[in-house]
């Protein structure tokens, strides 16, 4: 491999790992908002568990991104000192919590994708990425199961719960397509054989979602509708700026301190 190409791949890998980390962090941050406000004590605890797993994954990924960057940055530098336009998280992750149904649905749609992605990434030729994926996959399997069960429960529960979650499905759907549209970095890494082609995960994902929605007696939205995009290239919805302002404020206000 020539050196220029190698550097390109290294850069793409770093960006990609940041993208994975950012999505987990932003979703974890959203989950933090639920803590103490859940509808059922046991589910409050279950959501916190997922949040903790996501934060754990975030930290491993940022630590890896930092070594790839080689600028001796820390996980906290990457989380707290990057701006809106530098965050690469999926738009799906930053959408406000809505009601409990919206939150479990957002989680389900993401975890269904993660399940497929991590299952491939655990065999990646990049060993560090493979190791993180393998560990995360165990957690993701649990998150997927929990969230799918709640989608089914709410869909096939009462008239009210069904109409609420159907409405959430219709609203959130436009943020799901982005998962399957590869960024330039993803394309580079796919060509280099390091990550799977996300385009190819769509069919299997749709199959999983269709199955769960059928059991939940929910209607599938029109799959040819317009899909929002931009998260991976740092063009976000208006929500992210507020999230970062809140999350980063102490680090910004008191730069360079130990906490």
């Amino acid at each position, binding site marked *: 491999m020539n050196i220029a190409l190698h550097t390109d791949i290294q850069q793409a890998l770093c960006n990609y790992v940041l993208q994975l980390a950012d999505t987990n962090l932003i979703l974890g941050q959203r989950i*933090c908002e639920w*803590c*103490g406000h859940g509808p*059922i004590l046991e589910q409050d605890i279950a959501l916190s568990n997922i949040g*903790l797993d996501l934060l*754990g994954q975030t930290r491993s990924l940022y630590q890896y991104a930092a070594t790839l960057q080689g600028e001796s940055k820390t996980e*906290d530098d990457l989380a707290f000192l990057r701006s809106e336009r530098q965050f690469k998280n999926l738009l799906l992750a930053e959408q406000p919590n809505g009601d409990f149904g919206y939150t479990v649905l957002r989680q389900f749609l993401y975890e269904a994708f993660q399940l497929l992605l991590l299952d491939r990434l655990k065999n990646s030729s990049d060993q560090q990425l493979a190791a993180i994926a393998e560990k995360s996959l165990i957690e993701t399997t649990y998150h997927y199961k929990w969230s799918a069960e709640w989608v089914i429960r709410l869909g*096939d529960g009462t008239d009210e719960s069904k109409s609420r979650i159907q409405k959430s499905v219709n609203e959130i759907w436009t943020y799901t397509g982005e998962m399957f549209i590869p960024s330039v970095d993803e394309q580079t890494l796919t060509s280099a054989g390091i990550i799977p082609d996300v385009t190819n995960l769509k069919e299997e994902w749709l199959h999983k979602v269709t199955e769960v929605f059928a059991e939940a007696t929910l209607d599938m939205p029109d799959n040819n509708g317009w899909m929002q995009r931009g998260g991976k290239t740092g063009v976000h919805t208006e929500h992210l700026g507020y999230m970062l302002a809140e999350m980063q404020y102490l680090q910004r206000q008191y730069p360079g301190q130990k906490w």
Partner: protein
Amino acid sequence: MSPQINLEEQFQAKIDAEIKIEPKDWMPDAYRKTLVRQISQHAHSEIVGMLPEGNWLTRAPSLKRKATLLAKVQDEAGHGLYLYSAVETLGVTRLQTIEDLISGKAKYSSIFNYPTLTWADMGAIGWLVDGAAIMNQVPLCRASYGPYARAMVRVCKEESFHQRQGYEIMMTLASGSAEQKEMAQDALNRWWWPAIMMFGPTDAESANTEQSVKWKIKRHTNDELRQKFIDATVPQAEYIGLTIPDKDLKWNEEKGMYDFGPIDWDEFWNVVKGNGPCNKQRLEARRNAHTEGAWVRDAASAYAEKRAKRAASKVA
């Protein structure tokens, strides 16, 4: 001797012999009532106590602190669960207990009616509030009512983690920049007196102490525990270079304990009565969680019912 008196004597004899009372055992009504009140108040304190710290989850200054805080607040939810279960063994459902909280009928620890204004409050709460809770709760691991005592054993283990984590936050801030140290001192200034008040009114004014001590659902008086807490905490503050906001605080060589200044009981009773800075918000947050979650709970039970029916018709 009437049979009732006999039962009461046997009950007290068991307690005196340190034999645990279990849910199916006979117990005086007043014992049951006192326990329901005490344990449910404790359960509510765990749950309401999630709110002031939950307030900083999205603003924690590092990923590690964020995760640790989330785990801590989650632990408190777990404590609430154990304790609601202990109340259920006394014949009161969780739903009923929660409804008593949100209707304002039941009380919870007043400490949670104070606001968390800076990150240092996460340190002060862990160190002082969880620290005071431990003082109160360690003796309850030997409470006469079995399910309560067993719940407290699990709770106390985690509370001592929380206390150390909180102290560690304070230590980090106190040895940090001038601004961080100021933040830590300010948090101590605001949380010290409310923490001292967590032990409740002085023994002279504490109505239920004597009977509860006899029943062994209280092992020490409020003043004893308060003194113990102060004696343990003052050196910890000194060690990290923070000053306890009490100008009368002084080591009393003769008594072998600290003398401390007068407590503002007027403030205490005001907060108990609902006039604390956050009473309204805390109760409202719990009420909202409960009412806004009703459709989820309804859906879950409707779904469970449908499933059971489908399973039954399959078998048939």
